[in-house]
């Protein structure tokens, strides 16, 4: 959210992040230690995946409330699949497929059946959670092969595996959003869906795919969490979608489309992670952190909104009301 017109490469949220890190390092002793930083980043890995998926959906002026349950469902399913002896890679692929399937169902309901997003994803939240509880019999799942822990504990060229995974996924998402027609269509649909449709873009298909990606990334986060905890529970992802929404909004992605993407999302994730960590080190209870995040979410949303809507009204021409007599308005009073 840098100044309009000027080519400032440091956006508002980026500055906030830097300030937070500096302040925390200065005032909190244990903050700047390598171990703590590592911790922060590791904790943030799961959220960064979920948030990236949520970002795409939010760019479409939508929302995905089902990510947490999909995380749980994927984690539990993958754990079960692996403990049945399926080798690591196919097992993970199957789990991810389940996750993507959930997302595509969301996308289908929202795009083709035109169910409001929060209803469809809220319903999926219930359903995915339900299925996860059923197949896991509400227990914690242990005893799957240790190999999966490589996702969390392994290293590639000296860098922790989660960072590599997140890094690769973010690079892919960055490319997807900024260098493909699919990506441009996401911004277009979020910015002016009618214009996007008139330009011949496959709006319905792309919206459905976007929710599929959101589900897929939630599933990936679920597997990563499973690897981290070496166990899986149906409810392990609960709350992540909320954090993800907060992260995306904090990062500066403008809800009504046009602004935002991989860079903004990771910034938001890090802001959240740093704030959480700092509050933890100071001794603020987990519950109050929940309150703080809820509060900040609303405030940032309000600020974001005011920034987003005004320029549009200034520059766009006055609506043309010249209709031929006989055609009046649209069907319902909205």
């Amino acid at each position, binding site marked *: 959210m840098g100044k309009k017109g000027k080519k400032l490469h440091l956006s508002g949220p980026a500055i906030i992040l830097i300030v937070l890190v500096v302040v925390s390092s200065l005032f909190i002793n244990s903050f700047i230690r390598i171990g703590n930083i590592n911790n922060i980043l590791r904790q943030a890995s799961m959220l960064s995946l979920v948030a990236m998926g949520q970002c795409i959906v939010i760019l479409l002026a939508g929302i995905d409330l089902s990510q947490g349950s999909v995380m749980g469902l994927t984690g539990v399913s993958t754990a079960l699949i692996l403990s049945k002896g399926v080798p690591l890679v196919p097992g993970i692929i199957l789990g991810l497929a389940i996750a993507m399937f959930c997302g595509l169902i969301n996308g289908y309901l929202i795009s083709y059946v035109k169910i409001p997003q929060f209803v469809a994803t809220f319903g999926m939240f219930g359903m995915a959670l339900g299925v996860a509880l059923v197949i896991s019999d509400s227990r914690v799942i242990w005893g799957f092969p240790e190999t999966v822990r490589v996702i969390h504990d392994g290293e590639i060229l000296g860098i922790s595996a989660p960072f590599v995974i997140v890094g690769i996924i973010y690079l892919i998402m960055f490319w997807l959003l900024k260098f493909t027609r699919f990506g441009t269509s996401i911004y277009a649909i979020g910015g*002016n869906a009618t*214009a996007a449709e008139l330009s011949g873009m496959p709006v319905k298909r792309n919206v459905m795919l976007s929710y599929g990606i959101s589900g897929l990334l939630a599933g990936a986060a679920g597997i990563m969490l499973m690897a981290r905890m070496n166990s899986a529970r149906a409810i392990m992802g609960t709350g992540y979608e909320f954090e993800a929404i907060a992260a995306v909004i904090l990062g500066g992605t403008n809800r009504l489309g046009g602004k935002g993407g991989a860079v903004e999302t990771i910034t938001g994730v890090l802001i959240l992670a740093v704030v959480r960590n700092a509050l933890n080190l100071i001794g603020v209870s987990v519950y109050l952190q929940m309150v703080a995040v809820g509060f900040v979410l609303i405030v940032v949303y309000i600020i974001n909104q005011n920034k987003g809507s005004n320029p549009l009204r200034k520059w766009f021409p006055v609506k*043309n009301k010249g209709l*031929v007599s006989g055609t009046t308005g649209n069907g319902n009073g909205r």
Partner: protein
Amino acid sequence: MEKNVILELENITKIYPGVVALDSVNFQLREGEVHVLSGENGAGKSTLIKILSGAEQPDYGSIIYQGKKRSFKYAYEAQRAGIATIYQEFNLIPELSIAQNIYLGREPKKLLGTFIDWKKVEKQAQALFDMLGVKIDVKTKVVNLPVSKQQMVEIAKALSLDSKVIIFDEPTSTLTDDDIVKLFEIIKRLREKKIGIIYISHRLEELFEIGDRVTVLRDGKKTGHHNIKDIDMSKIITEMVGRKIDKQFARDLQKPGKEVLKVEGFTSKGVFSNINFSVREREIVGFSGLVGSGRTEVMRAVFGIDKFDSGSLHFYGNKVEKSDPLKSVKLKLAFIPEDRKSEGTCLNLNIRDNIILASMASIFKSGIINLHEEKKLVTQAIKDLDIKTPSMQQKVKFLSGGNQQKVVLAKWLLTKSKIFIFDEPTRGIDVGAKAEFHKLINLLVKEGAGVIMISSEMPEVIGMSDRIFVMKEGTIVQEFSREEASQEKILKAAIG
């Protein structure tokens, strides 16, 4: 088929519920010509455009494009075929750049199709603007552009689609004089490239500056078709409005009473300026003018829906500082909006709920509604206005347009309002209901109300009003008394 004719419409007819929008219209466009399409509001121009651009299908008649009969079921079919339409509301994505908008969905790729080649996109976009003779940075976000430049983006987009026909729908209504000069230069260049241009505008002076031929529509029919050099302004105006007014309007002229509403120096930046008028008891003040001239905006500000920047508002001789709908209703004002479906009624609620809506707080001061009394009032209202419905529990969305409008009026009658503002009260209503409505308004006036009527239907405005104000581009340009007014005079003032 004449030489060089690129687009032809034969006997195009389009019917909407209650009205014939286009009646066997014939139209012809040659390569490299600027063919102006002229006519009043509601004459059928927008419908014609919608049919040409694929947004609507004609009920009868055919489109012949490049020698072949064509039908366009979707907007982008027409676009892909080479017919581009530039509307007043631009179809651009605000947060994307000019270049991105032009090539939306068609971006050239590199590296075996894996990456969009943004450099190429920018280069090609730049080339288009060079062709148009416009200096612009194609990386600018559309939202940061002034309206005139946004329009050029649309034109560049049309060029990039290799359009053979470009339709301009009221292109100059939001442009400054300098912008207009630039636009005309661009149009001349397009002409040189043998692109056929359909140009819709109310501004007749532009017609003579840029047009080669003109076709005039009135009430859905073609009334004239000329070469520009063979015609003059007054002939066109006659063709636009020269209809016989054979309808009798039920108007019992009254002697006007006290002043109930006065507006002085009323201004809202960029929307309307220096509006001055007054309304007295027992008179109807008509507001005529082209769509977009600011009439609705003025009245919305008077009623308090929108804010105004300067000037003063007086109700019953008392100055009002700020107005808002609550206050206005308490002061016995009534506002019957243009769009009864999205602004006038709650479609999902029943007739009873709608009718009692504005008056329930003042009638039932305790906050509890006496159902028995409500039933009495509503039944009486339905009877008085002759609203045709099986019962008052009927949901408003199932009523006909005329009856819906009557519900809106009934709502305000129960508030015993003294000042009524009607915005296009009989638009989209069948002839019988229109007459009934006029009778009702006449009755209102007889009983002492002051009425403002915004209307684009000439016969209605002339037949009903005691005085008529004509607005153009946000200001009042002329006032006519009932005797002085004529269709030609009003249109001339509105266009002038």
